[in-house]
């Protein structure tokens, strides 16, 4: 399955600096370098409204605005509603996955994850 082009602009949203760095490093390893970061949903939404992004990778539990609310905000915004969103979270219960899917995420990864899993999910989202 083909991966999205390497020049896509990706927004990584996580309140933990280590997690943002891990995701950024894995994305670099997969050939992506046009990456920006946000510490919570509120910050992410502001960035999404002021710059054009092609893909969002977001955590669930964050202060100010959580990932689920961010996804709902994206889906309710006419300019952003088609933006692919991948949720990367420690929430591993079945009901969490269902809730995230209902909110509009394109795919779901449970932490901790491997680069292979991220690659596979990105391929599925952009196929």
């Amino acid at each position, binding site marked *: 399955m083909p991966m999205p082009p390497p020049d896509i602009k990706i927004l990584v949203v996580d309140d933990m600096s*280590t997690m943002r760095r891990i995701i950024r490093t894995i994305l670099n390893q997969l050939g992506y370098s046009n990456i920006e970061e946000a510490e919570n949903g509120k910050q992410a939404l502001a960035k999404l409204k002021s710059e054009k992004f092609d893909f969002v990778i977001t955590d669930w539990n964050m202060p100010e605005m959580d990932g689920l609310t961010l996804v709902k905000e994206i889906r309710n915004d006419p300019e952003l509603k088609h933006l692919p969103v991948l949720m990367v979270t420690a929430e591993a219960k079945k009901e969490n996955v269902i809730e995230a899917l209902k909110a509009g995420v394109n795919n779901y990864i449970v932490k901790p994850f491997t680069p292979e899993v991220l690659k596979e999910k990105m391929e599925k989202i952009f196929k």
Partner: protein
Amino acid sequence: MKEIEEIIKELLENVKELEKLIDEIKKPVAESSQLIPETAKNIQDVMTFLENTSHSIMNLLERINGNSKKISEDVDFLLSLNPVPKIRERLESIKEKNEQNLSTILELYTHLSFHDLAGQQLKTVIDVLERIKSALVDVIVSQVTAGKDLKEDQVSGIKGKVSEILSRDRISQEDVDRLLEEFGL
């Protein structure tokens, strides 16, 4: 005007009485109420330590990663020179082992997400501490208001005051006394 003064006097008397009551029951809960913010701070310190350590490990891994990539480039260069079969064989083996190392470094890197997972558990502990604090406020309020016919908003006011005291954001007894003095009490 005199009526308002009477009401204020009554209110201030109530405040003084409340302060006295809280002081009486505060002692046994003081230790636990002090422990809550202390414990929350300790947990926060652990989280910061974990974060800093994780970043230090990542820095080291990135340094190893950089070296491995340089080795890989050098081996590719040597292979491009068409070495004799024995040397080529060794170089290819080095290249293979180096690629395995690069992959292991990335694997180690992803394992550092333990910081995020541990952090989420520690945040849960901090939330529990906040709930304990809230329960503690309820216990104090129920003791202060026991046997008194108070309205809901009065209980709510007392709750706010107790919460302030537990947060150590209270007016001092001196301030209360000064106010009382102004009203001749």
